């Protein structure tokens, strides 16, 4: 399998920028196994990312990849998907990119229920800029901008996504590679907005400031904190504190998908306006004389 995913990697661009012990590679590999498993077409599969460690994945994937600007991956992806509904569009984002600067786009993408799959890599820190506080950092945790411990409460991103209207919401961790692979697969297959929170360790910027000395220790911590939804309902609020609830947390297969709803409405208008030619603007421009 390891060799097979290399078909979808720009191996000439490796080694990647991620630190040893980083969880991003685990999720990216899980994603590529899904690409192979589902037989996604290379030219019709587009990964849109923002800025940050997780978004750098776009640099290594041998698919259509759009490395956009900080926080705006979902907005760019909305444009791609609306322009080419036949594409499978996946968004790679992080907790800073997707939940802080891009938080508004996240809730509106959820609300529209547009058929995108958003994989949000949550490592509770800004890794690329040097370990600053992120909106998913737990109270009491330390960062370079929370030297005396974080005092703001964190987001529960899955509850946020569900409340905002996402029709598929799931969570997994880097310690559960098979689970995350299944969640990504189900998310891509789902018609509607799929939000997948992947809890990943950042030993370099998060672990060493928060008494989790080794990458293994961090992964282990994620594993022991994980509970399934079935287990979670049996726990009290106190017992649930600090736990990571994993699996498919919300699924609504009947929620209308935005692009399809738009297309149906537009078709009705087009018919009313008389037969109109579907515009195909996707051919290339003629190339003039080159330098």
């Amino acid at each position, binding site marked *: 399998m390891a060799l097979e995913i290399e078909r979808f990697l*720009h191996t000439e*661009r490796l080694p990647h920028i991620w630190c040893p012990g980083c969880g991003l590679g685990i999720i990216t590999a899980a994603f590529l196994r899904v690409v192979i498993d589902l037989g996604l077409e*290379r*030219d*019709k*599969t*587009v990964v*849109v990312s923002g800025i940050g460690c997780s978004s750098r994945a*776009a*640099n290594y994937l*041998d*698919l*259509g*990849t*759009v*490395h*956009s*600007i900080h926080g*705006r991956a979902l*907005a*760019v*992806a*909305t*444009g*791609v*998907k*609306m*322009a*080419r509904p036949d*594409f499978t569009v996946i968004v790679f984002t992080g907790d800073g990119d997707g939940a802080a600067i891009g938080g*508004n*786009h996240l809730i*509106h993408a959820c609300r529209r229920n547009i058929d995108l799959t958003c994989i949000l890599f949550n490592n509770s820190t800004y890794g690329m800029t040097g370990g600053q506080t992120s909106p998913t950092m737990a109270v009491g945790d330390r960062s370079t901008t929370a030297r005396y411990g974080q005092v703001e409460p964190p987001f529960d991103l899955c509850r946020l996504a569900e409340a905002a209207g996402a029709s598929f919401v799931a969570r997994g961790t880097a310690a559960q590679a098979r689970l995350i692979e299944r969640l990504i697969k189900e998310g891509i297959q789902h018609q509607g907005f799929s939000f997948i929170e992947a809890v990943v360790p950042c030993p370099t910027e998060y672990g060493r400031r928060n008494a989790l000395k080794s990458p293994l220790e961090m992964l282990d911590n994620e594993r022991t904190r994980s509970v399934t939804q079935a287990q979670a309902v049996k726990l009290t609020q106190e017992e649930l504190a600090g736990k990571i609830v994993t699996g498919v947390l919300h699924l609504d297969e009947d929620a209308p998908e935005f692009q399809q709803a*738009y297309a149906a*409405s*537009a078709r009705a*208008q*087009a018919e*009313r*306006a008389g037969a*109109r*030619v*579907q*515009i195909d*603007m*996707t*051919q*290339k*421009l*003629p*190339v*003039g*004389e*080159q*330098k």
Partner: protein
Amino acid sequence: MEQWHSHLLRERVDQSSLLIQGNRACALGALDAGVTFFAGYPITPSSEIMEAMAEELPRIGGVFVQMEDEIASICACIGASLTGKLAMTATSGPGFSLMQEALGYAIIIEAPLVVVNVMRVGPSTGRPTAPSQGDVMQARWGTHGDHPAIVLAASNVADMYRLTMAAVRFAQRFRTPVTVLADQLVGQMRESFSPELVGRYRLTSGDFDFTPGYIRPELAPEVRPPHILGLDEHPHVTGLFHDETGFPTNDPDESNEFLRELYNKVAHHREELCLYDIKNEGKGRVCIVAYGSCARTARAVWRLAEYEGLPVEVLHLYTLFPLPVEIIQQVARRVEFILIPELNLGQYAHEVRKMAEQWTTVIGMGKIDGTLFTPRELLDRIAELTGKYESV
């Protein structure tokens, strides 16, 4: 006439002329040039553009999305542009400010795009229902870093139509975002408009064809051929400095070459990009250089000046950037004064001064009260200038 794609215009096309709002004419120009994707966010005084697009695009197989803010709007347009669609958004000052970072992204990834800014008085919320030209330098230098910019300025309803078309053409030919500046007056006024009128105002660029129909020009020389998502390709696109494969580079030589190429693809084609009209050419001691709604006052002055015996030329600029250096320097060599009335505190006058002051005296006239210059105000200034000159 069957080529008029927009339903809005087609239903009236039997008439020789119709009364139409500037913002609506802008939408029609976009549709007639083949724009099929619009994402926007409402803002006074530009909202009528998106309203017209919301009405039209679904009927012709295009896409209209109202996004959650202006940042999302321009980003969605960029996404669509990467798939080869012709995309446009429209806004006003506060929204244009929000778009600046993404505008830089569109420039660096060479995504064709049209951004219309119907200017209102700023900064901040300012005066939403009064005209201004306060965003001229923002349109040039709003996003960070050195970058090319193509900026057009509309002065009437016919301009809103045809300069939007020109913007679509330039955006594709040069693979870069093009900004069309209008203002509250031009955007929201209604004016007689006819296909005949579109060609009435002279543009210097000879080969401009405003026949409605999808504009699919050839790429300009020096422009790299694009990689379009889904067209048998799966390119990598990034806002980082990149080499011709699309992948990031930190190499000093490659970085230097990359940015210079990006800059020069516009700078080297001023002749094609600079659209202007000149009245009373070679007959003035004073030349009024004007654009947008101020050019209307300047044109009125051109007619009145003849009557009042004042030696005035009028240079009406449709392209603000790249700077029309050649024509301004030509004028500067022969007139005693260049007078630049603007609805700002002299933003463009500074640019003209830099390139013309070695030959002539450049005088900026700024107005920021939300009203337009009257012809009398300009005539009085001209009389003062020419009179003062005689007494020296």
